[in-house]
């Protein structure tokens, strides 16, 4: 049971991320490097925010304080990573002779970059949130998955981790686009939705899982849709992706990898 619970939760949390990694990231060494670099930036932000949390002794019991500052710092470091990547962009474009970049579509390359770095952000944050819980889950005892409603600790943690991995991915796509196009309301959307979602998870401590999971899922869908649209997606293209229409029906930059690979095959 412990082992089953472990694998179940691990796959819920990181299964989609693993396949995303295998399909999108692993094929290109540069993406892996960007992934790790953005994970490193997230680590730095976590380091700073936990230092801050520890330093302000009176507020240590109030996680909300640490949370708000941590979210703000994360967004700050996201911006820092954005700046770093823009500095390195010229080199990166030259390097990436992947077939993905062959058309030298700068907008697409930028979206891919944002996608990859956001995924790195999300992956490391998800790992930090869940990995110790997972280690506890292996044994020697567990409270199980099927216990009464208020003990869905492991599963909710795993599910929220899943949400956060992809929330970060989408946030980065929106954020980078907002910075590029100077649409500052998009950046505000990212910061506010990040704050909202994180604050919602404060309700978990009161076992109000429905109150946190449902809105988080909704925000995930909304943010995902936004990211899809701003990276050139549309309902038409979505349909084309499903029906495997030929590529020439699509104009403009397709969204990330999925549209591209699906269409080209």
């Amino acid at each position, binding site marked *: 049971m412990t082992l089953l619970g472990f694998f179940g939760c691990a796959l819920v949390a990181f299964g989609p991320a693993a396949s995303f990694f295998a399909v999108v990231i692993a094929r290109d060494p540069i993406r892996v*490097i960007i992934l*790790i670099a953005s994970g490193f930036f997230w680590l730095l932000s976590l380091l700073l925010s936990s230092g801050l949390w520890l330093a302000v002794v009176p507020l240590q019991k109030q996680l909300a304080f640490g949370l708000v500052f941590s979210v703000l710092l994360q967004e700050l470091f996201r911006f820092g990573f954005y700046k770093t990547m823009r500095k390195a962009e010229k080199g990166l474009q030259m390097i990436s002779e992947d077939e993905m970049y062959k058309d030298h579509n700068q907008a697409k390359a930028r979206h891919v970059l944002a996608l990859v770095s956001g995924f790195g952000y999300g992956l*490391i944050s998800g790992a930090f*949130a869940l990995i110790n819980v997972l280690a506890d889950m292996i044994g020697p005892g567990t409270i199980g998955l099927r216990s009464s409603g208020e003990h869905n600790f492991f599963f909710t*943690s795993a599910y929220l981790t899943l949400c956060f991995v992809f929330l970060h991915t989408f946030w980065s796509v929106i954020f980078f686009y907002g910075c590029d196009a100077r649409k500052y309301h998009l950046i505000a959307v990212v910061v506010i939705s990040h704050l909202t979602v994180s604050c919602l998870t404060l309700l978990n*401590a009161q076992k109000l899982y429905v109150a946190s999971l449902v809105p988080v899922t909704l925000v995930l869908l909304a943010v995902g849709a936004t990211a899809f649209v701003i990276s050139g997606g549309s309902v038409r293209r979505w349909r084309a992706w499903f029906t495997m229409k030929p590529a020439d029906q699509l104009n403009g930059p397709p969204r990330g990898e999925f549209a591209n690979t699906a269409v080209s095959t």
Partner: protein
Amino acid sequence: MGERRISERAELVSTIAHQDLALRSLETSRIEFTPLPESLPMMVAGDADEMHTVALDQSHSTSDQPTRGTKRGRSHGPMPDVVTQSTNQSTARGASHVVASQSTNQAPERGGHRDGPSGSRGHEPRPAQRTRTRPSGEPGPEDLQRRALDEAAAELEEEEELKYGAEHVMKLFVPVALCMLVVVATITSLNFYTERNGYLVYTPFHETSTDTGTKVWNSLANAGIMLGVIVVMTFVLIALYKYRCYKIISGWLIMSSLMLLFLFSYIYLGEVFRTYNVPMDYITLAILIWNFGCVGMVCIHGTGPLLLQQAYLIIISALMALTFIKYLPDWTTWVLLVVISLWDLVAVLCPNGPLRILVETAQERNEPIFPGLIYTSSVLYAYVLAVDDVEGGATPAGPVTATSRTRRQRRSSQQALTDGDEGIAGADAVVVRQPAAPAHQRNSVPEEEEERGIKLGLGDFIFYSVLVGKASSYGDWNTTLACFVAILIGLCLTLLLLAMYRKALPALPISIIFGVIFYFATSSLVKPFSDSLASEQVFI
């Protein structure tokens, strides 16, 4: 099998093997582009064969060599291709090779090497390979094109390096990550490597006191002694290498890998069986160990598939790192890591640093550094196509082979070690090829196993793994993960520096410093924060 006996034996082994520890630890970390800049054109994998040749031809036609005329004649071939494909990215690739190889002509010895064969092949028919994918067109106005190419190449050179860097970073990331994973998995699943029953003789102070001052003093003294041993052993090795005592060195290496592959893996296996309650008899175990060890010895010191060799090197490093983790006192490990990385910095970068001397001597002699000490990310470059050409048209693929032969993996064979360094420029590929032929017949490995790409000393693997393993032995996965990421980022930065400076660099300092900082920061700052976040299920 008797548990007591195993652990007794483990102790015994640990005392026997400290010699080996010292040896392993002085395979101090070193990263380098093997054949240095020259290797760049060679790094292109299969599809770029023609690029390759283009690059080399170009380099000859632009350099002021006596054989210039013939070479220029030869450069008619590739040029039109370049013209016709000037919008293609592959041109850019080829162009930057030009620069890469041109820059190497400054190295007189290598230039000579390449010169001979290509000069002698000047009038040979072009290889089918080169024309395989490109129709040969009219020769264009070469000079203009060459100039244009040079300019383009100069711009592209840097990016090209970065590109290779990216590929090779991955070729190092994977084994380093694997090695660390093996160590972490072992540390977290086998108690044997974290429980304390014995120390190395190099660490006479056991940090048993509760007083912090004494602990600090103990760990500093221990680390100092270890470092002293390492320094002395390094100098012994350098002296042996300098005076060409290859037999002693390879004997030393063979002994140490013998010990690691047989004894240490025996202990490891015993612990695995004990932890998972697997009943096992000595006969089966002997067969297992014998096969494992013998294949390993052959792969590391003889010839074998590159993948298998790499796997064995990773295993060796992991076993060595586990031994360090088990037998070094806690704080000594941390101090030692820092001290070793500082030593690494000195040894590789100082004008008279021993490792620098080693690398330079090896380059002078055109030899690979000992197989048991270095992990090569080299592409196993199957030369079968080129070889076919060679047999048909008398070494058309010559420039490639000529440069590559000097880097062919020569495994500890004295004759092979010495034959390359004479720099017999005139003795072209045909002559030099001959020693390789029997190897080709002996095993199914492609004839030319080239040693290219980035090399990383096994010492780096060991100490990276020691750091991550030590971090994981305290039971916090976040810390382990942070160290893991920090080390990979450090490695990345080191490789970036390598691409910029193009000489052997110490691989330990950046990674280890990052790792140590992140270990202490994570375990003291982040851990309480993330633990309370996780227990309250708050996500940030």
